[in-house]
């Protein structure tokens, strides 16, 4: 078990290396440089060349790569070009937890909705609620994130006034428990928006998995042993049905962060997604590279967690 986890973590290292190479190469391959958007015709070209030389942008690519990586592993991603030369790490730190919280709210919403409904659908296939859930899933998958976000803002926030339409807190004059509740209140709409597609997917998966397991031989054995319906469902069915769901959740981690780029923009939510989009538009490469690397790490960590969890739930892969 521990050997398995350690081996998985060791595999992590070359993957991280590959990821950093890809991120660096892509940013180098992108056309233009940070000065492209600042070109002032009144300034002599040679000034830009000097600046580029000073920033090391004319050094050989491998040299630049090693310079970037060696400071990146120390948590230094350089300075933002657009945001008044503030360190990239500071900009990220401010928004990092906002995005994480949003992801957690989205995942929480996904799980508490999708799993019970999926189980219900599987136990009562072709019932009214099952058809309803199926309809909802297709709708959830078909509606783009940003569109659902706009609908939610229009109806739930502007028309009914139940939820705030943007931001993370109402003001600076709240604190303690009040602030916590206020922050949650702000996260509900973007959280649901972000979790919508996942909810739809998980519901479908859960339904088909539970249905599959309920028809299996070992469930018949459990029933033949005289186990109660509750026991058959919670002990024998659920653990088996959740195995593929866990795999899915590993990917969900990355999907949530990716989805956050759009959702945060719609709700004007100050998270990593908003920062990422702004950085791309402004060609603020230090930020783009840092975030691309962080998003990549999210996906790697998500898959690592999924693999570890997987081996906890399913004894068959423990000794591989």
């Amino acid at each position, binding site marked *: 078990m521990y050997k398995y986890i350690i081996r998985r973590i060791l595999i992590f290292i070359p993957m991280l290396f590959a990821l950093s190479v890809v991120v660096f190469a892509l940013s180098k391959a992108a056309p233009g440089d940070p000065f492209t958007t600042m070109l002032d015709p009144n300034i002599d070209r040679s000034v830009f060349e000097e600046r580029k030389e000073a920033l090391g942008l004319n050094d050989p690519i491998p040299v630049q790569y090693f310079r970037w990586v060696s400071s990146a592993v120390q948590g230094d991603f350089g300075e933002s070009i657009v945001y008044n030369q503030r360190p990239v790490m500071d900009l990220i730190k401010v928004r990092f937890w906002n995005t994480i919280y949003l992801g957690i709210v989205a995942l929480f919403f996904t799980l508490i909705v999708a799993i019970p409904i999926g189980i219900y659908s599987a136990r009562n296939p072709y019932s009214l609620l099952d058809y309803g859930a199926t309809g909802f899933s297709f709708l959830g998958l078909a509606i783009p994130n940003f569109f659902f976000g706009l609908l939610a803002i229009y109806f739930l926030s502007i028309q009914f006034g139940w939820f705030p339409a943007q931001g993370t807190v109402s003001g600076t004059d709240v604190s303690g428990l009040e602030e916590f509740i206020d922050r949650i209140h702000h996260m509900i709409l973007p959280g649901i928006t972000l979790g919508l597609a996942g909810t739809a997917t998980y519901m479908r998966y859960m339904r088909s998995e539970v249905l599959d397991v309920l028809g299996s031989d070992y469930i018949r054995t459990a029933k033949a042993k005289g186990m109660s319906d509750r026991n058959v469902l919670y002990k024998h069915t659920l*653990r088996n049905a959740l195995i593929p769901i866990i795999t899915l959740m590993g990917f969900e981690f990355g999907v949530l962060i990716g989805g956050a780029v759009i959702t945060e923009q719609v709700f004007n939510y100050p998270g990593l997604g908003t920062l990422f989009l702004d950085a791309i538009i402004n060609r603020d490469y230090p930020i783009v590279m840092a975030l691309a690397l962080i998003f990549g790490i999210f996906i790697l960590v998500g898959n690592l967690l999924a693999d570890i969890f997987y081996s906890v739930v399913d004894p068959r892969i423990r000794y591989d």
Partner: protein
Amino acid sequence: MDVKDLKTYFYLDDQKVARAVDDVDLTVNAGETVALVGESGSGKSITSLSIMQLINKPGKIVDGTISLLGQNLLNLSDKQMTKVRGNDVAMIFQEPMTALNPVYTIGNQISEVLRKHKKMNKKQARRRAIELLKMVGFPRAEDTFDEYPHQLSGGMRQRAMIAIAISCEPKLLIADEPTTALDVTIQAQIIDLMNEMKEKLDMALLLITHDLGVVAEYADRVLVMYGGQIVEEAPKKRLFKESKHPYTSGLMESLPSIYKEEERLGTIRGTVPPAHSFPKGCRFSSRCPHAMDQCFESNPDLIQLDHEHSVRCYLYTDE
């Protein structure tokens, strides 16, 4: 156990009704081994699952009584029935590779039965489970207790299934083709083990099989099933010596004999008709070498030839 007029029908999508088990009478006495024989699709497994009331939609037990020690199981509520399953009646299935839950240890799966029916605590259940594992032939029972099904071979898993089934010393053990999926050498071991457990715990054994060799070796009485009905019932020796029903005779001819050299074994032409479209008359009429006009008209009743032998065939009516 006494089963009377059991009817289990499957209501198919297109309004068809599959009469998978139709008017089956079956008695298994204490300490007796009764074999239920028939080819695939004859309704053997559905009969056994009906006894356990484990028939899933669209199937339904339509009529009949299933009495165990004077109590009609069909009158019990779902909750009461869970106290009978695994406790008074236990079952072993055909496919040991998939019959155990892959994510729980063997010990866990035995203990939960003991804890449910015998109200044992964790420690008692563990001790008893290890005893049971030893009984069914696990040499390192303590280790096996903590092992998962995937760590055991098919034969070993079937032994574990037997341990689960006998854990509460049931009065009736139903074994649904327990050896079909196993290696020939393992088959004999498993059947021997079941027989030994049956003797030891004085259980009744309902053995569902299509292996006539197994029947010859272990059964006291044999019921031959065809098309959801019993077509012949007799003590084992009489069935092998003087089978009456053309179907039973066909089965016997398909066995190789050590007394005569045969070029080809006998076969029965065709296959069992699907349960939603049996022929109008005798269900075997379409394949029967002795079919008469009468056979295509109406289905014969089960005729008592004497106190222990009965057959469903017009060849043996007096008229």
